[in-house]
């Protein structure tokens, strides 16, 4: 077998990003993907004839613009169309609409609470300040605070300096407060109206095994505000052709640098000899050789799945076992024969193009979490629903529509036992019922639906326990601690072995930053020219 310079395991968006940067720097790179398709959870598949769903991740906003530009993704076919709007339906028949037009937004807020409409300016300004600080560190490698190495001390200084530079901007005590408080408490500080808090609060729990009143969830909200589409901070968009377009553009960029992708190639083991990686062995016995092996799999699967215990320090095994990756989300994709009507909304409203929510108070959201804690899917779940076909008609046959529902909460196991198909169907039905409560013709329009619980997410994509972020975004698993303390710099415990998935800093969401950061560290180790963008280009 031919020897490559580097092998990347897993063709998720981070694996492809990593591979693209390595190939761009002149390395001979092979990407191995267990499925017959690439993208991992960044995927659009045609599971039903003529219906190309964006099956898992469903909107694009966090993808780092530096990477987008640098790898020339638009030239490789990536088109992100920003969408505006959004609505939260209320049990009393009213709704709260989120308009992209500033004045209209203010009027709509004032319809629910004049005080809140006025507080929104302050809220927006504060959130932006905090995300600016975090954004500077997305494309940087976290320092190891326990290390005395020059590079780590230097990076700690950068961190300290950034904090000090905030002097005239915000008080650092306030920043610490944002990072440590719950999204519920955070919103309570600005707003009085339940519906407005509920509309804004959802982003604090997406993908998270925490409730809106769990400390730390304000950070999760910030995490979702870090992106931008076309330079509009905090904006989200649809990728034409679904999220699979991101993976396809990355793959095309990678191939343009001479890279090679093999699908249906499930890795069984990372081979190690004398404390160094030598390559990988596939399930079918094929072996590929390279001095550098990069895992795009999450931490548990990497260390407990495709590495031999004897090659690993006890600490790594222990930490991998205790790595928290409990799934908390489900996904329901629904094919519709036509556009459902929502009588609460005025005719022709632009709100239809955005996210729909059906949870009108933080209390209902918190109760949804209580179900998860007890090992059940939420009876009254928080759902983030979109109809992408209103923005990108290519996603369904003419005249038809697709609806994507992201659902919080859905546990990895049902009361400690495995999911059954009946459980899954009941889960799907709960979501459908919730939408139907606000749309009388919705159920009649359903042609078919794909339901994914953490069980399906794990089986299809390989995300352990179905955790969409490749590991929970809690303090113990962020920044230098991601995936675990001492291994926050993309290097594995074996020479030549690296990690590049969302299990590493800065974590999940289709951001591509972990893949890029890992490539930078590899190039540094190889003493190659560092061609990966660093820091933050804008602001």
């Amino acid at each position, binding site marked *: 077998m031919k020897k490559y310079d580097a092998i990347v395991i897993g063709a998720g968006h981070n694996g492809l990003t990593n591979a693209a940067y390595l190939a761009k720097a002149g390395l001979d790179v092979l990407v191995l993907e267990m499925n017959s398709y690439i993208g991992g959870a960044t995927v659009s598949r045609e599971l039903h004839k003529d219906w190309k769903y964006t099956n898992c991740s469903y909107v694009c906003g966090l993808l780092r613009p530096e990477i987008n530009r640098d790898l020339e993704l638009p030239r490789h076919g990536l088109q992100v169309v920003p969408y505006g709007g959004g609505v939260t339906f209320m049990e009393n028949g009213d709704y709260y609409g989120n308009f992209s037009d500033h004045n209209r937004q203010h009027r709509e807020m004032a319809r629910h609470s004049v005080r809140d409409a006025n507080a929104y300016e302050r809220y927006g300004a504060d959130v932006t300040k905090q995300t600016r600080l975090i954004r500077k560190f997305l494309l940087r490698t976290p320092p190891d*605070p*326990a290390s005395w190495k020059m590079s780590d001390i230097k990076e700690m200084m950068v961190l300290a300096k950034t*904090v*000090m530079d*905030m*002097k005239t901007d915000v*008080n*650092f*005590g*306030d920043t*610490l*407060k944002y990072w*440590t*408080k719950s999204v519920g*408490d955070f919103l*309570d*500080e600005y707003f009085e109206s339940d519906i407005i808090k509920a509309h804004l609060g959802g982003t604090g729990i997406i993908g998270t095994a*925490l409730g809106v*009143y*769990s*400390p*730390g969830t304000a950070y999760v909200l910030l995490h979702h505000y870090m992106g931008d589409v076309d330079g509009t901070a905090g904006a989200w968009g649809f990728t034409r052709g679904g999220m699979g377009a991101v993976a396809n553009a990355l793959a095309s960029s990678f191939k343009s640098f001479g890279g090679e992708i093999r699908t249906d190639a499930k890795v069984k083991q990372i081979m190690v000899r004398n404390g160094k990686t030598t390559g990988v062995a596939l399930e079918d016995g094929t072996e590929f050789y390279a001095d550098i092996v990069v895992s795009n799999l999450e931490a548990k699967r990497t260390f407990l799945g495709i590495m031999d215990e004897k090659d690993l320090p006890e*600490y790594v095994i222990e930490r991998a*076992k*205790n790595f*928290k990756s409990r799934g908390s989300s489900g996904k329901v994709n629904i094919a519709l024969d036509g556009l459902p009507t929502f009588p609460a909304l005025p005719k022709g409203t632009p709100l239809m193009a955005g996210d729909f929510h059906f949870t009108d108070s933080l*209390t209902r959201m*918190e*109760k949804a979490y*209580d179900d998860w*804690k*007890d090992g059940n899917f939420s009876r009254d779940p928080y759902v983030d629903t979109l109809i992408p076909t209103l923005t990108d008609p290519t996603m369904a046959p003419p005249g038809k529509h697709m609806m994507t529902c992201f659902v919080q909460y859905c546990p990895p196991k049902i009361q400690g036992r495995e999911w059954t198909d009946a459980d899954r169907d009941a889960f799907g039905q709960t979501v459908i019922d919730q939408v139907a409560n606000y749309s009388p013709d919705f159920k009649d329009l359903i042609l078919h639906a794909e339901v994914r619980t953490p069980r399906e997410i794990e089986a299809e994509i390989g995300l352990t326990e179905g955790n969409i972020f490749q590991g929970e975004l*809690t*303090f*113990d698993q962020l920044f*230098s*601690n991601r995936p*675990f*303390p*001492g291994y926050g710099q993309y290097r594995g415990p074996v020479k030549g072995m690296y990690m590049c998935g969302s299990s590493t800093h800065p974590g999940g969401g289709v951001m591509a930053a972990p893949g890029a950061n890992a490539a930078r560290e590899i190039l540094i180790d190889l003493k190659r020219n560092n061609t990966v963008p660093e820091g933050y280009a804008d602001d």
Partner: protein
Amino acid sequence: MTKSYDVVMVGGGHNGLICATYLAKAGRRVLVLEANEQLGGGAATREFHPGFSVSACAQWMYSLNPTIAKDLNLASHGLQYAAKNLHSIALAKDAKHVTITGEGGVEGVSAQDKAAYREFRRKMGKFSKLLDKLFTVRPPKVIENNWTDRINLLKIGLGVKLLGKADMYELLRLGLINMFDVMEETFDDELLKSLISFDGVLGAHMGPRSPGTVYGYLYRHMGDVYGFNGPALVKGGMGSVGVALANAATAAGVEIRSAARVKSIDLTAERASGVTLENGESISATLVVSNADPKTTFNNLVGRRNLETNTVRRVKNFRTKASAAKLHLALDGLPEFTGLSAGQVGNRLVIAPDMHHIERAFNCAKYGEFSTAPVLDISIATVHDKGLAPEGKHVLSAIVQFAPGQLKAGWTEATKNAFKELAINTIADYAPGIKELIIASELLTPADLEGEYNMTDGHWHHGDISLDQVVMMRPFPGSEQYGTPVDGLYLCGAGAHPGGNVMGLAGKNAANEIIKRGGSA
């Protein structure tokens, strides 16, 4: 206008008295004004039935800072312990109790869990020691160019570095997370997990799954650094702490007036210049120090109209979601607990069958309801301190969680009685004959504690000890170094760093800061 003082202290709680004493020792003329007859604030002894007394608010002493005890000579001023280094026993319905002993070991679990506990304690002990470095100084401001703060930060940073790589990683990992996950990865025994995690949520509006509860655990175990191996009982109840501190204060030259409720903190040219009492008397002073909680201090005493919008907002956002009630029982004899000898009953008894149970009890509080299956921390002090009840009789005092201060249904006689019944029935599950022994009973809800001890929402710590309200965020940025946005006004109570728990450090640190600033704020 009567005579003038250097410092007038609003409130004679333990922190107020400690702060006043240190200031007097530094030569200040200090007057302490306490609204109640009894001094000590939340460190109070309460005769709830003729002849029967309990520690009404705080019931255990486990983290009084030893430097303070020594500086103020509290032993010679009458502070005595009826018992020290008590065990913590988690009760099991099948009588297979789990005990954390006063010697720092654990009994009633597997050898593996015993070993895991030793390692857990070793680690946590190291972290508590580090926390002590932070607790004994004013919280450093990160951004300002101040050498004291920088040196303090460096010392703490160095302390972290000196933990060694392995423990440092553990600190970074554990410091901000929840007890639930840490327990799950460390121990097997459900009851042991529950007993330990309970320490992380005691007195807090949090469940074991809430991030930040490991900090709560470390906070509660500061006593392990301060020479307490487990809870201790103060002779005569916690009110004796107030008495000893008042004696120490008087000896240092502090003037104390009890039953003197302050109505307002007065400002002259936007600077605190004294106080006015409920009876209309005005007292002027160079500085005003408030032992009252931040909400009371700013909203009621200073008044919102005298504050900048930003401060008003910060005060409003300071969370005071107290969730602990107190149950007091006068008993005709010593109750029998299934599987416990009479000698063991005097230890700290905990009813919290498993972590899910605690979490569910907390769920109720989130929605403004009291727990339908509460968790309890029980003390029968009369086993060690006969003076608290008539000959042969006993008192039981229990912290009952969760009971939100702002109960959705409101705290009425009916809701109070319902919760009291629940609490008594819960104890009776483990001490079957106890109901027949009850001579008198009372339940103090957070609303009652607020009325009795003048703490907003009846919160022991004057405000939640959650990650966003500790250290340089306590009570909020801008008032974190005891000085406040109001010139001449300082905070010295549990609402300031490092918080409550009859530790005394908020009072001591505030005094240091006032002395350091040379009296001008």
